[in-house]
């Protein structure tokens, strides 16, 4: 484990909404081919932290951030870094499903490829099917690929957004509660997907489901009130945490 090199190294990341300090100096390393779970009480800044890592946070009016995040050694916040290019390498599945209402299911999945200029219809179709299968949605939508993306149910939309993020094949994938609206079977499929992704990529996933974190994540970070309380291998966080706050949270005595 220690021989793995770090794909992403976050150093002292801070984030604000106006005057509100939402993330207060988080530092974590993310090794290649690993899954890291972020857990913590609602409102503690998990989404905000994740949204800093693909620089979407700064698109919110009045929001800003500071600190460093080195993607393969290059600070993503450096002035010479183009956020557009960065976001092709760091994909995101948002907490709230957000398919494009004007696009069909098919178009939603391949829109990222189209943005990259790929027009080959066969390739687009092939990618759409592959990604929808991986997101455990293919069987449900294969006969209605040309219906509006927003005509799907909440859980289906969530999986559609996962497929959409997969299609661009980003080496780092940020997933914000990707199974919050899913039944246990679909959730299990998404967990399987994460394990698959780990073969090549790095996944950071926010979840409120402790069992899920313990099952799929190699590492777990525990966040509280915008601060990183504890970070380490999941088996240690969930069996023998060093901080009493972490123990209180995972045993349900708090939060």
């Amino acid at each position, binding site marked *: 484990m220690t021989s793995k090199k770090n794909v992403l190294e976050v150093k002292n990341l801070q984030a604000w909404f106006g005057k509100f300090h939402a993330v207060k100096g988080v530092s974590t390393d993310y090794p290649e081919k690993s899954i890291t779970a972020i857990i913590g009480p609602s409102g503690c800044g998990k989404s905000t932290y994740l949204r800093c890592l*693909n620089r*979407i946070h700064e*698109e*919110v*009016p009045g929001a800003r951030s500071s600190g460093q995040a080195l993607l393969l050694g290059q600070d993503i916040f450096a002035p010479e870094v183009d*956020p*557009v*290019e960065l*976001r*092709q390498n760091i*994909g*995101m599945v*948002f907490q*709230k499903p*957000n*398919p*494009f*209402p*004007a*696009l069909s299911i098919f178009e939603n999945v391949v*829109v*990222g490829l189209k*943005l*990259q200029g790929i027009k080959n219809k066969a390739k687009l179709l092939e990618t759409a099917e592959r990604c929808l299968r991986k997101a455990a949605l293919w069987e449900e939508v294969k006969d209605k690929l040309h219906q509006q993306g927003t005509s799907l149910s909440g859980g289906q939309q969530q999986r559609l*957004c996962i497929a*959409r*993020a997969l299609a*661009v094949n980003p080496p780092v994938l940020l997933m914000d509660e990707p199974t919050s609206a899913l039944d246990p079977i679909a959730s299990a499929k998404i967990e399987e997907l994460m394990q698959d992704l780990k073969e090549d990529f790095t996944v950071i996933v926010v979840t409120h489901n402790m069992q899920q974190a313990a099952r799929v994540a190699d590492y777990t970070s525990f966040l509280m009130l915008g601060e990183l309380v504890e970070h380490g291998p999941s088996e240690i966080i969930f069996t023998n945490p060093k901080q009493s706050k972490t123990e209180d949270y995972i045993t349900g005595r708090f939060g």
Partner: protein
Amino acid sequence: MLNQQTHNATPTKSIAKKLSGAYGDKVAKVFMQTVALAILALLFLMVYLLFEMSLEAIKEFGFGFLTSTDWDPIMEEFSALPFFYGTLVTSILALLIAAPISVMVAIFITDILPVKLGQVLGLFVEMIAAIPSIVFGLWGLFFLAPIVREQITPLLKSTLGFLPIFQGPSFGIGVLTASIILAIMILPTITSISREVFKSVPQHQKEAALALGATREEMIRLAVLRPSFSGITGAIVLGFGRALGETMAVAMVIGNSSRISASLFAPGATMSSVIANEYAEASAGLHLSSLCYVGLLLFLVTLVVNSSARFIVWKFSPIARSARKDKRA
């Protein structure tokens, strides 16, 4: 005891309030219904009066009023076609100029400029709507017409002069000048409705596009413009409705000629401008009646255009859409 009293006080009060509320509601309802009916009655009365005043011309010309091309008060030959044509051409040309600019200005205000700067620009655009028509007319006559004659016309002739619409002499006043004035006048209408449409695009849609590696421009096209297509269409049709009825400024700069000419530099007339320019001198019954007939036609055209615009805006507004979705669910 004291406790009971305070306990009692509240319910009695609220019942009394409820009663007066119900009574007030009834009065308000009757009042609203009366007003609504009165407005409807007024509308019908207006159409009826217009119809009655046009009757002489309707009897004389019938539907030929729309097909013959002569408007000659001396020979008592009347036809609405040149004005129908003028209205259509000026309004469409105004739309061609104003629609792209308005949509771009709206996008600038909502999604490109810093918030404060956008608000200032928005305010300026709204102020255009407050300028009286006659001021536009004066401005067009003394400022725009010379520019059209000396700069715009030569430019168009040298670049697109092979098209019949850009041939012939220019006197400054004419169809093109009127269209430009109209374009400026409908700009605020299209801009402010487009702005509302763009503002209703949720932030998370824009984030979805950006997170996929869209540039700012691609994000605007994908997450803002595409879902707004029908809303923009409605805004444009409403702008068209405004252009159709606009009178004073057009009457001052269009040149008032009842001849249909292919050239945009030539003078022309619209349905509203001919009424404004001729009704004072229209002594003879048939002339006056024909002007009323033109007015009746104009009324019908604007009614159709405006209601279809309202329909489009209503049908595709996010609120109506979600209401329909709820109904289906």
